[in-house]
């Protein structure tokens, strides 16, 4: 049995007439130690999917299994790195990691906890900034801090929710390599959301594009059998990568086109309204006092 398993999962938000189905009939299997990238347009339910694995959301229908157990709530074993870092701004880098360590390794002695915190911060190369507060850090450093917090919990599953989308291209490639390094060293299972197909091609074993919802479904998947370490140069020019990229992008473009067609058929045609040129048709207002109506007697 696969490590992560989605069985006919459907989930939606709202109720009554406000209800929107976000995911429908999702079936997915991810093996232990695999690095999977989910790509898709924004707003298609990628975060919902990862929240289902993290246990922050419970499916309306079907079930999500991790390691053979139905997910019923969050667990430090399934470490989630949030899209917007979610650091606690009143704590230093060290303490932000410490909050997680104190909770997950509650019964360990203080010295061991400090060791764990230091190790996690070292892993993301943030040692020199350990005493700083999130407000003093750059975006890349904040994301490293967030990753360190998740790593410090020793998760067997890493869930990365668009961890790099807010970063500039250079910082992005540096952190990509750092995440890959950590994954190769620790061998966790990784599920990463990204909106960048190249990022998926560079990092993942398998790319799963989400169809455009709502509700979104899983249409296809691309196995990237390219041995590691992969070269960025190859990604941009190699024939193998070109084929896989066009396959994914074509799927996404087709999805977009289908969605557009669907929304056009539903579209309400708007009346063609042209603004009135007031200077041409200046309204004439006349103020006057109307006399009390009197009965006009017939003169005849």
């Amino acid at each position, binding site marked *: 049995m696969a490590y992560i398993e989605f069985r006919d999962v459907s989930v939606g938000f709202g109720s009554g007439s406000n209800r929107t189905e976000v995911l429908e009939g999702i079936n997915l299997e991810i093996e232990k130690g695999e690095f999977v990238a989910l790509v898709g347009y924004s707003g298609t339910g990628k975060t919902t999917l990862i929240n289902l694995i993290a246990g922050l959301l419970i499916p309306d229908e079907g079930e999500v299994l991790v390691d053979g157990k139905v997910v019923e709530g969050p667990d430090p074993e399934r470490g989630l790195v949030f899209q917007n870092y979610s650091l606690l*701004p009143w704590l230093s880098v060290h303490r932000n990691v410490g*909050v997680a360590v104190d909770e997950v390794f509650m019964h360990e002695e203080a010295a061991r906890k400090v060791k764990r915190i230091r190790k996690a911060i070292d892993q993301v190369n943030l040692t020199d900034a350990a005493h700083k507060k999130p*407000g003093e850090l750059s975006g890349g450093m904040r994301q490293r801090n967030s990753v360190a917090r998740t790593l410090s919990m020793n998760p067997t599953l890493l869930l990365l929710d668009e961890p790099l989308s807010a970063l500039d291209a250079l910082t992005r490639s540096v952190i990509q390599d750092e995440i890959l390094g950590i994954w190769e060293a620790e061998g966790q299972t990784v599920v990463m959301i990204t909106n960048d197909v190249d990022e998926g091609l560079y990092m993942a074993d398998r790319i799963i594009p989400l169809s455009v919802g709502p509700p979104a479904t899983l249409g296809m998947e691309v196995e990237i059998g390219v041995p590691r370490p992969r070269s960025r140069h190859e990604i941009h020019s190699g024939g193998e990568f070109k084929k896989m990229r066009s396959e994914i992008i074509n799927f996404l473009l087709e999805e977009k086109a289908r969605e557009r067609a669907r929304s056009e058929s539903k579209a309400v045609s708007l009346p063609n309204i042209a603004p009135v040129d007031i200077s041409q048709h200046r309204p004439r207002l006349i103020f006057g006092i109307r006399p009390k109506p009197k009965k006009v007697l017939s003169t005849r």
Partner: protein
Amino acid sequence: MSGTSSKNTTPAEMAGVSAESKPVKKRRRMRYNPNKVAHRLNQLGLGYFSPIARLIGGDEPAKQLRELASNTVLPLVAFMVFLTAWAMCASVVKSGSVEIPSPHQTWYAWGGKAIPFASHPFPDLVAGKEGPLFAENEGRDPKSIVGFTVAEGVAEQDFYRDQAERVAGFEERAQEAAAEGDSEKAERYDEMAAKFADKSYQGNKTFFDQIWISLLTVAIGFLAATLIAVPLGTLCGLSSKFNIAINPLVQLLKPVSPLAWFPIVFVFTTWGIDTPDAGSIWQRALFTSAGVVMLCSLWPTLINTAVGVASVDKDHLNVAKVLKLGWFKRIWKIVLPASLPLIFTGLRLSIGVGWMVLVAADMMAQNQGLGKFVWDMYQNGDTLSTAQIIVAVFFIGGIGFLLDRIMLVLQRLVTFEEQTI
């Protein structure tokens, strides 16, 4: 020979050491960063001094001087206009025996001394009365605030000197009696000595004693309000049902005047607190006054805490969820720190309301604070007493301003620099 050479080398070595260590020291010393100091000053609510800090750093001196000048001159001009308007009222507005005192009369009511070379502010009051009482008080009018304080200080010293003499006298007699072998008499004298030694000075409260009592009253009321409002506000923020339940009550009680609360609090304190000793500062009136302060200053903290807790970033709560923090830890580690800035905004408003309400509460409860001072001076009903009320008004305003500044500094300390994380 070797001895002299060693003597010669030692200072040379020392010179070498110091010459080497000096630049190291210089490098280590923190450089004066005028911008940083100015920023810190601003944070402490001492923004007035930040141009001076920049001036010391030599940062655009002309601009700093201009800023300093306008920061000083403009408020001074406004104050002069205020003084003039006040002085103009002073000679005109009067009712019966009381006139609105002039600034000079107010100055006299504070210090007990006329401004040199000016005509005496209270000519008819003082004529022929500058006798021994003035001389004892360093030439101050004993009816003025400082003069009265000095006089009380002298009286207190006299009391304790007298007490010590009496106690010593009784002890001496007790010893004499013991030497004579009359143990019963000796015991009686010892008892009397102990009785006298126990007595403490029961003089009148001075203005400064009353300030301390006022501060103590507000501290008790404010502390009690905080202890009630923060937990209650947290509950309101956490549970919308709880909020719905108590919100009407909060809205209903929030606008109630301290004067209306007083009789109710009075019943509570009379019921709950035993009559204390006459000399104790923990008078029942103090608690009545503190209770009124509490009831009026509760609301800003409660409402701000509720808003702060309810608006904690959802991402921060998700962190708590992923970490599986328990209820208490979630509140203590995530919710409360995240809402501290708003809680402190509430506390700052609360202490302002508390201090404002205090004078009225003191008047009603006859608590020995500033309100009692104002009330007593009002009952005196003469111009000098009215001038003393004006002095009290300046003190009440000044202390209120200080309290606000202290809370502002605390508020800035708990507010993280960037909230958008």
